[in-house]
């Protein structure tokens, strides 16, 4: 069983976002981590390998720094890793370009199963659908349970108010929901071994893709959300204060 897991390096959820002098997000003092949903995808890939045998290959597209996230996947237990890194791909938020590159890299690995997180927490991108479409294979998103039997897989996915069970023929793409599993910690031994595992870096040219391939988007600028305004305390007796509150909700806030 060839299992590919797509992982993305993102800002730590507690990172403070700062816009630099050049108008871009300044990541120089930010801790980078593996996208949390990709941790679930990696865990599922490792569980499948433990059950069915085979190989887990972690794949990422990003800057050379994204190697760190691939090393984390290797430390968790992935067998080898591929990083697609190219100056043409530096615009991290362009899903179109990233998906083209990832799909090409993945197709060369001839996977039976492709796993990734249901969403990247930085730009909200959902790469699973794009990759599946480019490869022309089935996809099941927001998966909470996954069973593989021969060349078929049964996956349960979250839908409004319930879950839906879907059977697909492999190869197929699955995107992981948080509740799919409980990601393991990498171990010290895993971290030590990760150094010795293969981590290949490919450019767009290596993949036979046009290095001048442009994205579909142009980032015009960034701005931070407006700071939260302080609350307001209405003083006085409870009855009076409540009356005043109701009046303000009607006249000032215009919500009732």
């Amino acid at each position: 069983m060839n299992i590919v897991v797509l992982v993305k390096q993102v800002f730590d959820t507690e990172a403070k976002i700062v816009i630099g002098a050049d108008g871009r997000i300044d990541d120089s003092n930010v801790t980078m981590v593996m996208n949390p949903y990709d941790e679930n995808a990696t865990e599922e890939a490792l569980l499948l390998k433990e059950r069915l045998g085979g190989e887990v290959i972690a794949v990422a597209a990003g800057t050379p720094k994204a190697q760190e996230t691939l090393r984390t996947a290797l430390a968790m237990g992935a067998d080898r890793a591929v990083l697609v890194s190219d100056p043409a791909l530096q615009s991290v938020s362009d899903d179109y370009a990233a998906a083209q590159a990832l799909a090409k890299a993945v197709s060369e690995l001839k996977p039976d199963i492709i796993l990734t997180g249901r969403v990247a927490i930085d730009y909200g991108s959902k790469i699973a659908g794009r990759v599946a479409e480019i490869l022309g294979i089935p996809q099941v998103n927001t998966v909470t349970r996954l069973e593989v039997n021969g060349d078929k897989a049964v996956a349960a996915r979250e839908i409004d108010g319930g879950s839906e069970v879907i059977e697909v023929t492999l190869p197929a793409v699955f995107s992981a929901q948080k509740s799919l599993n409980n990601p393991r910690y990498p171990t010290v031994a895993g971290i030590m071994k990760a150094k010795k595992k293969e981590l290949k870096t490919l450019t767009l040219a290596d993949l036979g893709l046009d290095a001048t391939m442009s994205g579909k988007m142009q980032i015009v600028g960034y701005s931070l959300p407006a700071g939260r305004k302080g609350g307001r305390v209405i003083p006085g007796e409870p009855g009076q204060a409540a009356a005043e509150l109701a009046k303000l909700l009607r006249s000032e806030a215009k919500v009732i």
Partner: protein
Amino acid sequence: MIFELSEDHQMMRKLARDFAEKECLPGLEERDEKEEFSRELFAKMGELGFNGVVFPEEYGGTEADYISYAIIVEELSRVDASMGVTLSAHLSLGSYPIYKFGTHEQKTKYLKPLAEGTALGAFGLTEPMAGSDASGTRTMYVDGGDCWILNGSKIFITNAFYADTYVVFAQSDRSKGSRGISAFIVEKGTPGFSFGQKLKKMGIRSSATYELVFEDCRIPKENLLGKEGEGFKIAMNTLDGGRIGIAAQALGIAQGAYEAAVKYAKERQQFGQSIAGFQNTQFTLADMATQIEAARLLVYQAAYLDSAGKPYGKASAMAKLFASETAMWVTTKAVQIFGGYGYSREYPVERMMRDAKITEIYEGTSEVQRLVIGSQILKEF
């Protein structure tokens, strides 16, 4: 000179931090309040490979370096100083002497389970009359023909009662002073080996501390560690390394208190602004950050020297001295920034201040560290 952690070390830090925050933090206050040791957390650390992090794979370890070890103890202690010292005493004191001075058979039998995390280690040196002066050891041993026979007692033994394997020091002839001391490996459950009082402590309350009692305790001949009379050398050599662990523990305590203080200073409003807006607070936070950074460089330097196989006795004494005094100063100032809340058990800095104090005392008091550094400096000139 490279002042940056390698990718491995950064991964170790993230792993240890995640473990401390997700596994040690829940229940921490209760363990402190009830003085409860958690063997379960120790076993979980073993599964991650913390418990034998520096030892060879052959003996159950994971062959990482002492910087990795320091980072793990630091990150545990940033959240839970008791867990930090449990690991430090287990690895540096309980396991290291077996690794360094043990035979292949002793390492296979004792070090392997210690490093793999199935066994817990402890170190029995301190006695009522032998604290900073280990040559005053009064626990006696005699050659009983087919065994060694131990009599005496030890106090303030970290991990005792719960530990499976103890490295114990005893004297054959008090007139010989430090040259009469030998080291032995003693298993829990050996007839004649029991535990005395549990020590009620100011801080690190969820770390176990007990007395060891030996009454005609017969130990197999093959459990002598090193040669007869080498005990003092083994103890001193072990304590040099142990200092790196305690220095890392102190560093972690300081870091935890500093982070709590910065966060609180930004939230706490007085006189119409956050107290972080006052220059007085900023100066305190600046001093905290600077001292912690200096302590960190000393700790990692000592760990680097140890890993590189270079002399590290002076460096580890400096790291332990500076980091422990930094921990005491930073936690005291953190309590001050929290004001009345800082004195309350509702907030973590109260515990951190109690935990910090011991780092200036155990594994060589600050005074002993100055003695070690002073004598080394004079030798160098």
